[in-house]
């Protein structure tokens, strides 16, 4: 059970998160929190003239699952369009992290970063 959750990839991303900073120049930023467990995240997006995501960053505090997901997702989003981000699902995140199926109690952790990024791309 535990080995299925605290995978090598997740622990590695948690220990060495990618894009965990504030972008110096960004077009949109969104804050999101998971009030039941105290996870917080702030995401930053910069778009190129064709409205494609040019740069991504995030910062926050949270559990290994929410932080690792934010890290993996931030890498994935570079070069994607708003529409592509809007279509991402929980299953996509599970696949990115190599999780078979997230436990019900940890779904919010998994979805925190995606929720923030979705709101960010909905921003005009």
């Amino acid at each position, binding site marked *: *059970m*535990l080995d299925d*959750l*605290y995978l090598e990839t997740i*622990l590695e991303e948690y220990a060495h998160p990618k894009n965990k900073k504030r972008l110096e120049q960004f077009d949109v930023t969104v804050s999101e929190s998971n*009030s*039941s*467990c*105290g*996870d*917080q995240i702030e995401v930053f997006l910069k778009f190129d003239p064709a409205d494609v995501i040019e740069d991504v960053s995030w910062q926050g*505090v*949270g*559990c*290994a*699952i929410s*932080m690792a997901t934010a890290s993996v997702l931030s890498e994935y989003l570079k070069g994607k369009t708003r529409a592509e981000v809007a279509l991402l699902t929980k299953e996509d995140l599970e696949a990115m992290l190599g999780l078979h199926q997230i436990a019900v109690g*940890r779904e919010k*952790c998994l979805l925190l970063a995606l929720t923030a990024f979705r709101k960010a791309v909905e921003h005009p």
Partner: protein
Amino acid sequence: MFDAIQVRQDFPILSRLVHGQPLVYLDNAATSQKPNQVIDAISEYYRQHNANVHRGVHLLGDESTRLFHQSRRTIAAFFGAHPEELIIVRNTTEALNQVVYSWADQHLAEGQVILTTELEHHSNLVPWQQLALRKNMRLLHVPVLSDGQLDFLAFDKLLEDNEIALFVCSHVSNTLGTRNPIQQLSEQLKRTYPDAKVVIDGAQAAPHIPVDFEQLPVDFYAVSAHKMLGPMGIGGLLVKRELLAEFSPFLFGGGMINEVRLHEASWADDIEDRFTAGTPDVAGLVGWAAACEYLTQLGMKSVEEYDQVLVRATVEKLVQLPEVELVGITQDRELHKRVGAVSFLYKGVHAHDVGQILDSEGVAVRTGHHCTMPLHRKFGWPATVRVSFQVYNTLEEVDKLVAALDKVKQVFRL
């Protein structure tokens, strides 16, 4: 003192396995487990006596009504209150909201001051925020110090500088386990402002320490059954007798009326009826009474002493772990002021992950902000791990907790 190993025999859930391991249930501040005596009382009620109360001239109706009143008397007596002083609600949250709608709304006015504290559970903060907003009142907070205790000098100053109409405080903090000196604080308040009223959130005190409502200089005291071995969905608001006359019902309907006409109604003279609109949770009340009897049999003085044993052992053990940072009272000479709960941060690992790893070892704890976001924000804690006790926990379980914490280190390779 009672034997916790014996006590455990009464709790069927404690013999089940969790992830193949024996259950070590340390999430009692969220809700306690229930003994056979409570489960059986509820089951027996539905199997043998179920009927609506105060209706129908038939035997089951009489039995149900009798059980309802008998249970009320048992519960009220447990808290040192008169039966009519006990208003039946669903839980502590509803009890506190009832004070707002049944008393504060009518008796407090614009510009007056409500004094609360920084360590309240959201259920004893948000209703007062809403009241203050609605009535344009001022809401002030007694600060919490880093040792987990209220700042009593600040309390003095707040009393000196503001005419307090209402003081709202928890008896025991659900996150820190701090036992607030409500007796002294209430006496001091009432010496300064004799008309001021006091509301106490007793959710975390009732399961662990004797409460004598008549002796306490407080006006309202809120409790939940489910944290004190009783069922979920039932709780009580204790209201001092002399205030009941100026206490208004806020749930209207059947059972609470005297006479109803098409455009008007009058309220039942019987106080118990007046605040029990609709069919009450009789089985829940019967179960709660059984829980009170169970605790009385153990003796609340012994329950309090045993809780201290568990609290002290846990603090002493956790303090030795370099990766654990305890919050709240840890000093030996102050530990008697800590009741029911020990919370901590784990360096480098979020509380949620700690909780998940403990669960894999069968140890159930609570992680997060425990409905005390302002307290967590004040001290910059993103989330904490809370270990909380009941009469069936053992020192051996505290050792299992410590062993399980070692697994956190292994998983995160610290």
